[in-house]
């Protein structure tokens, strides 16, 4: 008889794994990864009931209570989904996605405008804003002086521009901003294959303008979670993320690049390069 009972008793490790599986499934449902009705709550409850008499340790009882709590949340989600599906707000998500993809931006904007009642509010003048305005007005140069700066003499005759010139002055972009950032991310991943990349080495270029542009692009990469900045031995290091990972508590990091700073970086870069060749 005792042997039979021993046989019926589940292995603790297997029982724990089963309960942890239930908790994980419930958490995934709560994170909207699965439909709440994918979980057979009755079966899950029976599993918990089956293992309950065999729990001996406090830890296992806590795990059981935790699983029960998660199951109750899933039940609540099932209830709210039923209410939601019976309401007029319900639209099948797959159908809606198809609609959103197929409709033009203008049509989507029109649909929103039909159901949009913006808040009416007025920005008012406050004491600090008045003080700021007065301070600005007091330091503002007279109109004649301001216009004098733009008097460049007689203008040059009209000329023609090639596409290369348009590229140079930034009127025509060779590649979109998205492509530029993707390329920069790829470069960073390549350079960091052996470890973190020094921030100033990565952004420093032969030209000051290019260096500043690169710093701006890197700031976008970091903000959007494609790379992260870490301080190591008093210098800033760049580390690429394998995939986008947003910081839960983002920190602002001001980086000032003046012409002098860039010149120093460039000098250091030259020295490093020459010592490397030696």
């Amino acid at each position: 008889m005792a042997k039979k009972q021993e046989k019926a008793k589940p292995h603790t490790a297997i029982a724990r794994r089963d309960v942890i599986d239930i908790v994980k499934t419930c958490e995934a449902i709560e994170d909207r990864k699965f439909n709440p009705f994918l979980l057979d709550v009755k079966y899950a409850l029976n599993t918990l009931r089956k293992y309950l008499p065999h729990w001996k340790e406090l830890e296992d009882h806590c795990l059981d209570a935790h699983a029960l709590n998660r199951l109750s949340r899933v039940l609540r989600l099932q209830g709210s989904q039923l209410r939601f599906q019976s309401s007029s707000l319900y639209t099948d998500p797959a159908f809606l996605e198809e609609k959103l993809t197929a409709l033009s931006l203008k049509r989507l904007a029109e649909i929103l405008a039909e159901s949009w009642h913006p808040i009416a509010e007025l920005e008012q003048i406050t004491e600090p804003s008045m003080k700021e305005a007065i301070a600005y007005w007091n330091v503002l140069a007279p109109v004649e002086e301001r216009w004098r700066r733009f008097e460049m003499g007689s203008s040059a005759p009209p000329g023609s521009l090639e596409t290369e010139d348009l590229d140079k002055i930034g009127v025509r972009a060779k590649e979109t901003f998205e492509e530029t950032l993707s390329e920069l991310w790829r470069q960073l991943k390549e350079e960091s294959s052996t470890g973190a990349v020094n921030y100033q080495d990565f952004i420093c270029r032969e030209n000051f303008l290019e260096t500043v542009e690169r710093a701006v692009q890197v700031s976008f990469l970091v903000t959007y979670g494609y790379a992260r900045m870490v301080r190591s031995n008093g210098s800033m290091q760049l580390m690429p993320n394998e995939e986008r990972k947003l910081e839960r508590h983002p920190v602002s990091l001001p980086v000032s690049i003046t012409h002098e700073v860039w010149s120093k970086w460039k000098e250091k870069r030259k020295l490093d390069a020459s010592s490397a060749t030696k």
Partner: protein
Amino acid sequence: MERKAKARRIFSDKVKRAAHLLLFRRGKLPGAKDWELRARLGEDYEEILRQLNELLDNVDLEVKTIGSTAGVASFGETLTPESRYVTTLKGTISLREARMCGWRIDSLAGLAIAVAYVVSKQGKAPRKEVEKILARKLGRWRAMAMTDAFVRAGYLGEDESGMLYLDWRTRAEVDLRTLMSALAEARFE
């Protein structure tokens, strides 16, 4: 007779004060909280707001109340009792007017996509998914920038686990039923 006229004057003063409180932004969010209105207008503030509403009706505006929720509110959940009163447009505006208010067509379209998607997911959707569907129409980087802008403006809220939900401004400004039925009825182009 004189007493009645005096009472009416006091009441109309209070209506003016209510209009100032609701229309002029003082803090981070527009409008005024119910306790603020009670303190400034007295216990009968709801009656004063009703009168103000009648006046605003002539200029296509209305006073609306929005429940303030702490964190996530899914459908069917009750909101916390502390409410905020705001003044919104009663009717709707045309795209041309919206553009004059500083909105771009693609920003409006992006907002429609983000709000409709979150609604279809019962008021809560992972940020990644929202950005993914926005990116299909607007490109990846714009989608990310736009999501940030909607969160900053109060249209969407983001919780610790990276889930987006409809925040106070959407609850105040967007008629979700009209939006969802308009999207459902829209013809494929």
